[in-house]
């Protein structure tokens, strides 16, 4: 399938919003792939971290909006720590998640009561809070 790209797409509203709230300039990225090489969560991702930035560079909004990778990212910041251009992908992933979560609204977030009592008895609160803040239910 071919993809048509244009000025309006590269400068599209969604992409611009992601750039704005993440504070990252996608065009700083020169696609070296170091982030993808070191990311611990790639096995469960559909787009590599470097590809998420790539799709944003090209303004491929739908693919990025619907990607699974943002939900798999654990914000471990290894990508940022090693990025030779200083791009913080954990912020970009968060921006993508946040925009989706804002769209869904509070009721759409993970409901902690869905977890088993056993699980809740052991899992630390920080996991629960992060889960609520960052994720949609699977």
């Amino acid at each position: 399938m071919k993809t048509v790209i244009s000025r309006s797409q590269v400068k599209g509203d969604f992409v611009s919003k992601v750039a704005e709230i993440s504070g990252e300039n996608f065009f700083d990225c020169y696609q070296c792939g170091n982030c993808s090489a070191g990311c611990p969560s790639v096995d469960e991702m559909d787009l590599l971290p470097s590809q998420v930035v790539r799709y944003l560079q090209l303004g491929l909004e739908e693919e990025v909006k619907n990607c699974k990778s943002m939900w798999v990212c654990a914000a471990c910041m290894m990508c940022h720590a090693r990025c030779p251009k200083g791009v913080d992908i954990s912020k970009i992933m968060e921006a993508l998640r946040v925009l989706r979560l804002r769209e869904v609204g509070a009721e759409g977030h993970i409901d902690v009561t869905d977890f088993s009592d056993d699980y809740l008895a052991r899992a630390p609160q920080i996991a629960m809070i992060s889960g609520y803040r960052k994720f949609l239910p699977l």
Partner: protein
Amino acid sequence: MGELIELTGLKDGEPTSCVAVFGDHTDFESVPVDRRVMVIGAGITGITSAIDLGNAGYQVMLVDRLPSVGGRMLQLSETFPTLDCAQCTLTPRTVESGQHPNVLLKTSCEIEDLKGEPGDFTVRVRQKITYVDWNKCTGCGTCIQKCPSKSIALFERDAGRMTAIYTLSPQAVPNKPVIDADRCRYLTKGKCGVCAKVCPVDAINYEQQESFFEAQVGAIIVATGFDIYDWKNKMPEYGGGKIPDVIDGLTMERYLSASGPTAGAIVRPSDGKIVKEIVFIQCVGSRNPEFHKSYCSRVCCMYTAKHARLYKHKVHDGQVYIFYIDIRSTGKGYEQFIQQSVSEEEIVYLRGRAAKLYQDGDKVMVQGADTLTGKKIEVAADMVVLAAAMVPNEGARELAAILGLECNKDGFFKEDNYKLSPVETGRQGIYLAGCCQGIKDIADSAAQGSAAASKALVFLSSVRRQKQEAV
């Protein structure tokens, strides 16, 4: 069409009086042959060699087949990575070569034959017909202002017009005109003769004949430079030159140039509209061993990034796309230049060769790919700029045959040893510099120009020592 400005830069009816600048030249034959050098090609490389040698007290004959010196750099707008204006960098050098008492300019000349030995060559040179007697001409420019025949000009890469009697630029050195026989009304149709009528010193000579002269020199530096690959005839997939809004990089230089046909405005050749979506395609004919040239043309990555940046300076809301295979920015400060350009100008680099261009309404459709997303990409562009391969200048093989030099498969002159004798040839006394040996940028070319000059100096001083010892 965008508004074309007059190339002469002179105000109407105000003839300036220009005296021949190289009249105060020291006599070429005033020194022995082992103190004379011929430099073939008067681009930035040849000029650098010539001035170096001239400054060292040698007599230099600087030969070029064009009517004035400066070469390709004359056509450029601004140069990477400092964005210095090319004219401002070049002009002092061309002026210096014209005014240097030890440098004799021989423009509109071609090499016919070589005889003799290293240290004492005899070069036969053909002086082409210019239809203007330069001994009489004062360079006043009246003929150029009055010439009624204005047509698409090669120097402007077909993007602008020039008169049939012309100088290559308002700052031409020597600043004396020649007539293009193919475009001159008098020479093609037998009617007109305006230039002859207005010339105050009777310098126009429609009957001028070719002439020949011989120069005796101790050493020769070859700096014949490059040309652009003939993509118009050889690359039908990019429109074969038939899509008006597809141009090559050197043409883009003319568009970007303040003294170019649009005075620096980036407008579409087809309808003069401002370009909002611009696609650059790199490696056009380069790195393509199957169909075109197997080598990399070295400077395209940098000049394309520069084009993109200069374009964005002029069209702030425009979008740039660059199709590339690898970004090659290896010189001092080059990598930083590219990275800064991408970040600041938000240039979309697409990793993949563009396969095809076609006209669709008033847009040029670019079919390409991005191997990083794994997608086939299409862009509807207002204008497409091809970074076409650079090839040895026309006639390089013939010159090689005359001088007894070797060429490689692509027609580049071969040096003696790639690593340790990069400017020496198989023949003693003949040296190479600049793009005729392999494509390189201005900085590397100029450095090589100085290196070749150094080799010629060393060689000629050894010739003199041998002579002294013999005595």
